[in-house]
């Protein structure tokens, strides 16, 4: 049951391992941070596509002679996020006079840091073997691997709502305050259903470790087939968790102007923006890991540990994550926003009973066919 933990406990870490771990942290963080500008571009392009516009199509390579035929190439507007970022950095860093300065300043970090922490437990591949058969060890494509990885991911992600709420409260603004109230109310109405959906998947696979869940899916079926109801519930709640349309009540532009981040500008606003997109990426990773087979694909060995073979894992994982991210963007521009009380009644009156029923059925089936579930 504690497969990976036993592997990790079998040897004491060396200096090389510490170095590799640090590299893993840098690589994972860097990868997500470089996906986010692309995500922003994708969002604007898909929005334009859905609304029959062109979208960003001007910001590209400069008209320099040394670039040769590429001089002035528009690159389909791919450098637009760069221009946005420069604009945000150059803006004035503004704090309202009656704001609670301490909370106003730390709130963006309180949103961003927990979400970034959550990625640490997500396995994006199996790993590769370093060194000989005797003294070698397996470098996992996962930053931290411990017995309760999935709980950790959700625990720290749920902390980010404090940042949202405090941001709105500290800016001393009616709209901000309303955004805060909505953020906390939203969270208590979908979280229970979300955990129950995850719990159903945990009961099916018999493990709280994300890599064990992926390996179970590679030997049985993907979670989306094993737990379709849990998948739908989780998907709905994932949209609510990341404050994306159709559940973006804390910021709801037409009603609350910008909600909790109304008073924020410059890089503080950019931090919220990054937090939202980082949250989307991490949520997509969780969806892929829990329900779409993680890094595995039928036909590709799930636990190949030579370096070249192991690269297939992160590749498959990235493609799957990008597909889920595309779904995120498409849903945002296709569905209208729910009314605020509709999410609460959806969460409490529909999703929680359905998730509970699903859990009970899973438990009964699990006890009946216990042998096939226990590893």
């Amino acid at each position, binding site marked *: *049951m*504690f497969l990976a*933990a*036993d592997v990790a406990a079998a040897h004491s870490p060396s200096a090389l391992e510490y170095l590799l771990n640090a590299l893993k942290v840098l690589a994972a963080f860097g990868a997500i941070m470089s996906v986010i500008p692309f995500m922003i571009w994708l969002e604007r392009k898909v929005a334009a596509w859905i609304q029959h516009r062109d979208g960003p199509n001007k910001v590209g390579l400069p008209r320099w002679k040394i670039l040769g035929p590429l001089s002035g190439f528009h690159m389909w507007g791919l450098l637009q996020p760069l221009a946005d970022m420069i604009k945000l950095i150059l803006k004035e860093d503004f704090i309202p006079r*009656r704001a*609670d300065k301490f*909370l106003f300043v730390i709130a963006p970090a309180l949103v961003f840091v927990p979400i970034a922490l959550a990625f640490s437990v997500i396995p994006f591949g199996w790993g590769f073997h370093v060194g000989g058969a005797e003294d070698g060890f397996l470098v996992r494509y996962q930053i931290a691997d*411990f*017995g*309760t990885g999935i*709980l*950790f991911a*959700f*625990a*720290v992600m*749920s*902390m980010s*709502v*404090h940042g949202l*709420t*405090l941001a709105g*409260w500290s800016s*001393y603004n009616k709209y901000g*305050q309303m955004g*805060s*109230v909505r953020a*906390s*109310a939203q*969270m*208590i109405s979908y*979280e229970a259903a979300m955990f129950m959906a995850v719990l159903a998947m945990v009961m099916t696979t018999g493990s*709280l470790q994300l890599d064990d869940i992926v390996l179970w899916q590679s030997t049985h079926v993907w979670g989306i087939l094993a737990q379709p109801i849990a998948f739908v519930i989780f998907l709905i709640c994932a949209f609510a968790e990341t404050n994306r349309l159709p559940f973006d009540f804390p910021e709801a532009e037409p009603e609350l102007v910008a909600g909790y981040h109304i008073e924020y500008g410059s890089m503080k606003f950019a931090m919220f923006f990054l937090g939202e997109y980082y949250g989307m990426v991490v949520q997509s990773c969780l969806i892929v890991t829990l329900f779409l087979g993680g890094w595995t694909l039928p036909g590709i060995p799930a636990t190949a540990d030579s370096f070249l073979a192991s690269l297939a894992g992160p590749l498959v994982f990235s493609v799957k994550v990008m597909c889920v991210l595309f779904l995120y963007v498409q849903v945002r521009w296709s569905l209208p926003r729910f*009314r*605020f*009380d509709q999410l609460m009644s959806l969460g409490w009156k529909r999703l929680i009973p359905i998730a509970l029923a699903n859990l009970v059925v899973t438990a009964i089936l699990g006890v009946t066919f*216990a*042998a096939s579930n*226990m590893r």
Partner: protein
Amino acid sequence: MEVLFVFCAIVALIGGVLCVVQRNAIYSLLSLLVSFAGTAGVFFCLDASFVAVSQILIYAGAIAVLFLFVLMFTDTRTVLGMGTPRVVDSRAVFNPDAKPEAGTRVKRFVLPNPLAALISLGVLAAMLFAIFKLPERFGKFGPLVEGEGLARDGIVPMVQFGSASGITLVTFQDFPLAFEVVSILIFAAVLGAVLLAKRHTAQATEPEPAVATEDE
């Protein structure tokens, strides 16, 4: 690991003290969050990752958000008609009728309620008793123990201390009675809450305006 343990413990203690001393309820909540995080760190250092994660998930995630939700509705800044949030008696926040006379200063330190102090000391005594009088009860757990309860088909899985399985074994094998008592307690609390909410809606003379009307 010891250094980390001491650091987390100090963070938890500082958070706890600040939580009580702080007079702005929002800052109290933030200090409480810091304290929860420190406690979770302590559990992590003790190899009890499941307890640590539960600490964050339930306390820092769910319960603190409920507190925050309530605090959002109690405008701490306008209760005493003061401009900035720093000069509000945290007691007054929860008692809107208690307005100070004009010209009186808000007390910097509020003495603890004797009953609350008594209850806190009682809980502390119970915990100290549990820690110092019942060591042999918990002594049998090493880093890895064989879980007899999980044995199936002659296979005895190794159960890690502090893991989900370890907690499950302790809860359902060693302390099933305590578990059932706790569940009955929580059930009673939920029933009470439902009863209170029901009575509140029954006593309301006029029906509350539906939330929907503002958007129609």
